[in-house]
């Protein structure tokens, strides 16, 4: 009777499997080497990440809601079309309290049409019913204690745990690569001595960017610290953000 698995065929299959594994291994090493070669030729190699500590400061009293930052970010970083933003602008409209109520203010209305990329339409309330209104640019808060990293199980497999864990909602899954994405402070620009695209393009100097490890004599971030009362978003979470805000209202989180 003919057996289904002879010793010879079993050994052959085993040898085939071993050869396959070895080929994959060699191919991976070769691919990594080629990638490294390609990358090192086009990227600046005199940049030492340990010699910098970047900081973003945002003055919401200066933001005019033009949306140039959101547009520039999307363009500069090749963020896919659609509701995906690494930085965006939120509009806060705080209505006057209902007449006769014991409240100091109404329930805040927050919107961000297209991330504010193409500006903001007329507010949904008549002007005389608005107590206070302002814009608040948002981006990755660059936490010293990042909740997104704590929940990350492995290299990115698109599980989106980090998207859920981020208390600031700055992460998203890229619809093309299916991996998680967020602001990198334009790493490809800052490693070349340029400012991040949003900072470069902001016409009102609402975004200030600097390096805590290389402060110059009259550094804009030093001035920002001295001239403003700064705060961070959701400080009670203990995430220690490295994005500082000036002129924030209590309604912003």
């Amino acid at each position: 009777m003919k057996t289904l698995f002879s010793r010879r065929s079993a050994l052959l299959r085993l040898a085939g499997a071993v050869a396959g594994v070895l080929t994959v291994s060699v191919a991976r090493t070769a691919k990594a080497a080629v990638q490294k070669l390609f990358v090192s030729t086009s990227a600046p190699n005199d940049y030492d990440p340990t010699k910098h500590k970047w900081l973003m400061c945002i003055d919401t009293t200066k933001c005019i809601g033009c949306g140039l930052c959101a547009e520039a970010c999307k363009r500069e970083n090749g963020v896919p079309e659609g509701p995906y933003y690494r930085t965006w602008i939120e509009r806060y409209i705080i209505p006057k309290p209902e007449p006769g109520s014991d409240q100091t203010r109404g329930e805040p209305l927050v919107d961000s049409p297209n991330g504010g990329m193409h500006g903001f339409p007329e507010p949904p309330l008549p002007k005389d019913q608005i107590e206070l209104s302002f814009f608040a640019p948002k981006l990755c808060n660059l936490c010293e204690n990042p909740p997104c990293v704590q929940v990350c199980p492995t290299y990115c497999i698109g599980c989106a745990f980090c998207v859920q864990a981020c208390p600031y909602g700055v992460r998203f899954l890229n619809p093309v690569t299916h991996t998680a994405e967020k602001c990198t402070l334009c790493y490809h620009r800052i490693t070349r001595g340029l400012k991040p695209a949003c900072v470069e393009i902001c016409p009102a100097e609402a975004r200030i960017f600097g390096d805590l490890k290389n402060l110059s004599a009259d550094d804009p971030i030093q001035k920002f610290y001295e001239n403003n009362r700064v705060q961070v978003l959701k400080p009670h979470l203990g995430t220690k953000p490295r994005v500082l805000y000036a002129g924030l209202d209590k309604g912003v989180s």
Partner: protein
Amino acid sequence: MRRFKLPPQILRLVLLTLAVVGSYLVARHFLVPTSFGEYGWYRGDALALIASRPPLYAGKQSCEKCHSDILHKLAADAHKTLSCEACHGVSREHIDNPNIPPDKITGSYCIRCHEANPSRPAWLKQIVIKDHYGAECADCHPPHQPTPTQ
């Protein structure tokens, strides 16, 4: 004394466990990117990959080389904080080859910032287009020197 013999079902269980754990370790070895964990809880090569992206926005200092006269004018008036590319658009290619104009699509026009909106801060000059003069903005407010002279 009788010699202890591992019951065959336990032996099978042990072998099965070893096979499962072993194949997990082998699969993990081949699936995890080689540079993972090089600097932290991420793929180390990702840094170099992001850094290899060519910047699109050239930056105001790149314009200085050829257009210092305009930048000088700009610095003297209300638009001094504006980046050139805020209005003229992405200019990386223009810097490398002046014959390629900046990308107008990403540029902006006056009303993007100056259209009246109650959410805008009071210090910003704002107009309601239909109540303002009917001419072209630049007739009275040349963008590089927007404050009218008379």
